[in-house]
């Protein structure tokens, strides 16, 4: 299943990017061949001989909307500069200016590093008092920007993934160390003894008294309390314990899938920190609905995991079942092994 979803994500992103790019090209969304007219204010006065002059760039909203065929409006004015060289005159928008779509996309496409929108002034007519000029600016053509975006995203996210994983080293080490103390002191065994009757129905494949149960309890409680930092190392430790019971190390057992399903349902009494950061105090009135929804989704997750593991395809790939069958085969056909 994951094979198909994974390939599907990658292939469909190419397909969507191409469709969207072809649509944009057909509609000439970026006006690759036409200059945009702007008004330039020269606070220090218009000087045709100076090399670099600061300007304030104004774009008429009405004209902008009809030029690009969008609903968005540019801001009152943008800081920028005009740079004159023998090869022509260049207009630069200030770094990180809050540009409207599609100018923002033109900037993203044409400048990857310095975050400045640049264009060439094709015509410029100063007003008589030389404080302003009316100009037309031609941006470099934008071709297949989405295709560029998805490739860039692949590189960016590959980097992010490695950063996230390496960032976990410290917290993982801390909690795995603490857990080792808990194990050595016998605390995990005590938790196993207390929680076994409660947890066993969900994980019938774990033998009685196995430390995996203790780790599962700790992982689920950390989740309920919203302790994201602690929940991940505890979950990993629980998976490691379950892996010891797994006869085929590259295939998930039913217990592993159950633990994962319980984790993704994520029953939480404390709303996640990220949500609090975004919503502020508003979160308070959402706590009750969140608890109700996660409670029901936990029931659905457990039911789904239990149901799916009975489907013929997943039954056939169950590592414990396969191992049992191998033992059966060996036991039922002793003669063949003697012959060889």
């Amino acid at each position, binding site marked *: 299943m994951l094979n198909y979803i994974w390939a599907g994500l990658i292939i469909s992103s190419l397909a969507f990017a191409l469709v969207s790019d072809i649509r944009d090209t057909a509609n000439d969304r970026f006006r690759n061949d036409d200059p945009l007219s702007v008004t330039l204010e020269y606070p220090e006065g218009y000087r045709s001989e100076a090399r670099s002059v600061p300007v304030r760039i104004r774009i008429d909203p009405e004209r902008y909307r009809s030029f690009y065929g969008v609903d968005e409006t540019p801001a009152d004015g943008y800081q920028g500069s005009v740079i004159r060289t023998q090869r022509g005159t260049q207009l630069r928008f200030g770094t990180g200016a809050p540009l409207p779509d599609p100018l923002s996309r033109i900037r993203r496409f044409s400048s990857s590093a310095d975050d400045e929108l640049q264009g060439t002034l094709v015509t410029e007519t100063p007003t008589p008092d030389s404080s302003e000029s009316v100009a037309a600016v031609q941006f470099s053509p934008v071709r297949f920007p989405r295709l560029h975006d998805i490739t860039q*995203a692949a590189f960016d996210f590959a980097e992010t993934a490695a950063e996230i994983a390496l960032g976990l080293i410290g917290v993982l080490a801390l909690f795995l160390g603490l857990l080792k103390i808990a194990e050595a002191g016998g605390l995990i065994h005590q938790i196993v003894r207390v929680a076994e009757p409660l947890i066993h129905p969900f994980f019938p494949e774990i033998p009685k008294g196995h430390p995996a149960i203790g780790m599962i309890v700790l992982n689920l409680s950390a989740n309920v*309390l919203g302790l994201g930092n602690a929940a991940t190392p505890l979950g990993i430790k629980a998976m490691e314990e379950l892996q010891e019971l797994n006869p085929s190390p590259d295939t998930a057992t039913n217990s592993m899938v159950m633990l994962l399903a319980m984790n993704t349902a994520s029953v939480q009494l404390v709303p996640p920190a990220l949500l609090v950061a975004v919503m502020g105090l508003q979160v308070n009135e959402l706590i009750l609905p969140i608890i*109700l929804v996660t409670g*029901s989704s936990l029931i659905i997750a457990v039911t789904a995991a239990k149901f799916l593991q009975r489907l013929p395809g997943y039954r056939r790939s169950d590592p414990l079942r396969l191992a049992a069958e191998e033992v059966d085969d060996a036991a039922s056909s002793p003669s063949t092994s003697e012959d060889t």
Partner: protein
Amino acid sequence: MDLFRIIIDYFAIFVLPLLIVGLPLYGLIKGVPVYEEFVDGAKEGFRVAVMIIPYLVAILFAIGMFRASGAMDFLVEILHPVLGAIGFPPEVLPMAIIRPLTGSGSAAIVADMIATYGEDSVLVKIAGVMFGSTETTFYVIAVYFGAVNIKKTRHAVPAGLTADIAAMILAAYLVQWIFGKVMV
């Protein structure tokens, strides 16, 4: 409800320090060589983190490409009429699609929706409940299964996604039932 919140808040404040201080203390009482055991266990941290990298790269770069491709706009366009008919507000669809993929991306969507619809709108409440009641399923699969080198995930994805979809639908209906219907 407020008292409940206060109790939970206090508990959340104390539980981590208690865990970090309590476990070595407990070990000491039980006569465990605590420093030696800690270091022994902590050694694993690096190995596990490095083990996760290939799994996380595989999942995250695919998700990143999908997000950057603008596929979301197409999906919203296609599913808009269907969802409207069954009373599921189409405005929260981007949230429902992005949530199992990335946490930071879905937080950005909530922030966007607050800016667009106002923080008191029912739509924002639905998005908030969706955020709070589901997990980034694919990230959890990559990290948990990656740490023990499980490549064949069997029914983990369908089970996780079933729970996610159920939570999304429940959130949409429950919030509208509690706070009133979405005004369009």
